[in-house]
């Protein structure tokens, strides 16, 4: 028995391969779109995993620090450290800002962390962790910084001493880690003009600048420029401690809000990135339908182009099963080539996306199944037409 499909493909190999390639590129776009969606979710997960926390303690009645802004005093951590079941607790601040790098700007999330505590970058790919308590930074590779370069954040220059990767905010912005005290200052320090104006404003207020009370104005000005707030306290629990029990204690007795990993995940995935994820999901759905339609049309027109040959086959008495098999095999072959080309293409161009694209093997397997099913379904359409062809057309 000869393989009619292989013969036919070999006959128009160039056309077949080019069609497969085109189809592959289309599938590659679909895979990339799925990868973008997975990447978004993974960004949110990475944020949680990299913080190394079991509990997030934030301002009461807020869903901070990622989804909402949260601010709590930086000495609240001491009370939390003393709770039963808490192994470590550390202050942390988050501040999204544009970081200047020469002529270009990068959007980055500046994280203030305490060394050796949750919130510290868990691994590095180059350089070292900060040693000084001020003005040293660890940057994510995505910021484009290299070890030894200097970052300007507000009024201070920070030396990049280490690099890390996949340290991103829920929005996918790369992180820059700086010491907590610097970050507190960077977050709440106003620019010099604002400070000077504010001092003048305070001095103009007769209630705050009374002639009989020397030093009052200085004291008020001093309180206005100092800051003792942080955005969250990251808690690492002792082995065996129940996160929900500790979270309950914090909520009830510390009058702060506490979230476990599961709750935080819910906030990030279901609330923070929900709309953009649905947006991408919608686009992915449309793209899948369009891809399926295009695959169907390609196979259909390919069969239509071979009507005369099929009529000849019928004329010489080829069985219907053989003809249907030929068309099905060609469709599946086309799908296979398309899938492989698409998957490889998606992998190749993934690093060039500005945000993280995560191509999961599970998604690839699902994609493969969908492609094969769509090809098979599309071929039935073509087979129906092929079987209905009149053998007389071969000579007519």
């Amino acid at each position, binding site marked *: *028995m*000869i393989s009619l499909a*292989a013969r036919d*493909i*070999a006959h128009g*190999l160039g056309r077949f391969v080019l069609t497969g390639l085109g189809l592959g590129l289309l599938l590659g776009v679909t895979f990339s779109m799925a990868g973008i969606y997975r990447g978004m979710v993974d960004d949110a997960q990475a944020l949680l*995993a*990299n913080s*190394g926390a079991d509990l997030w303690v934030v301002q009461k009645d807020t869903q901070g620090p990622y989804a909402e802004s949260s601010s709590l005093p930086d*000495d609240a951590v001491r009370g939390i450290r003393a709770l039963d079941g808490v*192994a*470590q607790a550390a202050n942390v601040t988050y501040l999204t800002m544009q970081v200047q790098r020469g002529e270009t700007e990068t959007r980055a999330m500046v994280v203030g962390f*305490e*060394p*050796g505590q949750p919130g*510290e970058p*868990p*691994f*590095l*790919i*180059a*350089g*070292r*962790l900060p*040693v*000084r*308590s*001020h*003005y040293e930074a660890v940057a994510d*590779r995505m910021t484009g910084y*290299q*070890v030894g370069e200097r970052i300007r954040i507000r009024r201070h220059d920070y030396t990049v*001493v*280490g*690099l890390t*990767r*996949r340290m991103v905010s829920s929005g996918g912005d790369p992180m820059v880690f700086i010491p907590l*005290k610097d970050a507190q200052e960077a977050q709440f320090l106003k620019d010099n003009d604002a400070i000077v104006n504010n001092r003048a404003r305070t001095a103009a207020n007769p209630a705050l600048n009374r*002639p*009989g009370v*020397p030093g009052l104005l200085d004291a008020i000005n001093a309180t206005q420029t100092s800051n*003792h707030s942080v955005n969250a306290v990251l808690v*690492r629990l*002792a*082995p065996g401690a129940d996160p929900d029990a500790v979270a309950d204690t914090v909520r009830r007795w510390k009058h702060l809000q506490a979230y476990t990993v599961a709750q935080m995940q819910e906030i990030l995935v279901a609330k923070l990135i929900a709309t953009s994820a649905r947006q991408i999901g919608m686009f992915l759905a449309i793209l899948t339908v369009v891809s399926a339609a295009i695959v169907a049309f390609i196979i259909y027109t390919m069969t239509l182009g071979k009507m005369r040959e099929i009529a000849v086959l019928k004329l010489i008495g080829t069985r219907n099963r053989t003809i249907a098999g030929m068309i099905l095999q060609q469709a599946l072959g086309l799908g*296979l*080539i398309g899938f*492989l*080309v698409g*998957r*490889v293409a998606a*992998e190749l161009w993934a690093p060039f996306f500005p945000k993280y694209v995560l*191509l*999961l*093997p599970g998604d*690839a397997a699902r994609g493969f199944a969908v492609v094969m099913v769509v090809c098979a379904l599309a071929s039935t359409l073509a087979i129906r037409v092929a079987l209905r062809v009149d053998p007389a057309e071969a000579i007519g």
Partner: protein
Amino acid sequence: MKLPRPSLRQVLIAAAVVLLLAGAATVARRSGPFAAVSVTVVQPAQADLAPVLFGIGTVEARRSYLIGPTTAARVLRVRVDVGDVVKAGDLLAEMDPVDLDPRLGSAQAAIERGLSAQRSAEAQVADARSRQALAASEATRYQDLQRQNFVSPSVVDAKLQALKSADAQLTAAEAALAAARQDVTRLGAEREAVGRQRANLRLLAPADGVVTAREAEPGSTVVAGQAVLKLQQPGSLWVTTRFDQARATGLAEGLPASIRLRSAPERALPGKVLRIEPVADSVTEERIAQITFDAPPVGVSTKEMAEVTVALPVVPKARVLPNAALKMHQGRSGVWLLDGERLRFAPVRTGARGPDGAVQVLDGLPGDARVVVYSERALNPDTRVRVVERLAGSAP
């Protein structure tokens, strides 16, 4: 059934398909969760470790003076301005004496009046003395005459009575003179007091120094203790430096330090730790130390920010690792060791830390350990790793 011999074209197609599949398989293996994590390894080195402490401080004058009146007063004139160099005892400013000068005049007039009264009392004493002398001589004479029986005893008695009366008058006159003299002394003291008050309104320099602030202008009223001028000793500059409590181990008096002023960050000025404040800051969790300059720099303004690096004694021949190798795993700090292909977490105890990120490992590290330094993601014992020279994204 006999299989047909595959044609060259079929072989080629099959080869291409196999190649594409192999490519896709490689792609799938190198990305995604099954991929091996690239890591770099290092062996602990023997080195002399020179730990440093890093702090932020402000330049301050060791001795500064607030100069103001001791009672509420209006400023009459200010004779110096900011930047003027003054000597101890120089007149810096004067307060308005209001009624003190007339009161001084009144006191002077009262003294003169007292002196007049004193002179009158002196005259009265002289008068009484001469009367007393006359009475005494008369009494003696009549007593002689009575012995010769020339006069009656009653006449002698009258003369003796006159003598006693003259004695009493002299005593009274002398007492009046003493009172007049005491009055003059009292009035003199009163004038002295007013004069002192007057002098107290002249603000004199308590020491050699430089005027750093002129806080009140002529015509303005200041309350008791409010500064009109601020003075500081120029040679007494030091840097009040704050060290993170968590990173202040080993801070001691006498240690050499290098001071970098924000205005001249390239120039390291030598200094040493003069004093460690016995009270730390509980709010900022910092220790405070005073660092003096070996040679006080010229043209430095106080309150300028300075970075201080204190050199601690060198730890000779320490086993050192880069601090990027220290990771947290299950709540413990340690390093990942590479046993052949497998990862093993070894908790270690660390000692001194160098400025370049070197960390002294005290124990917990086998002699020929291969320690993971950089990794592309957080590790756990099941992670498959691939040792590379350096990780992607880091400059050589």
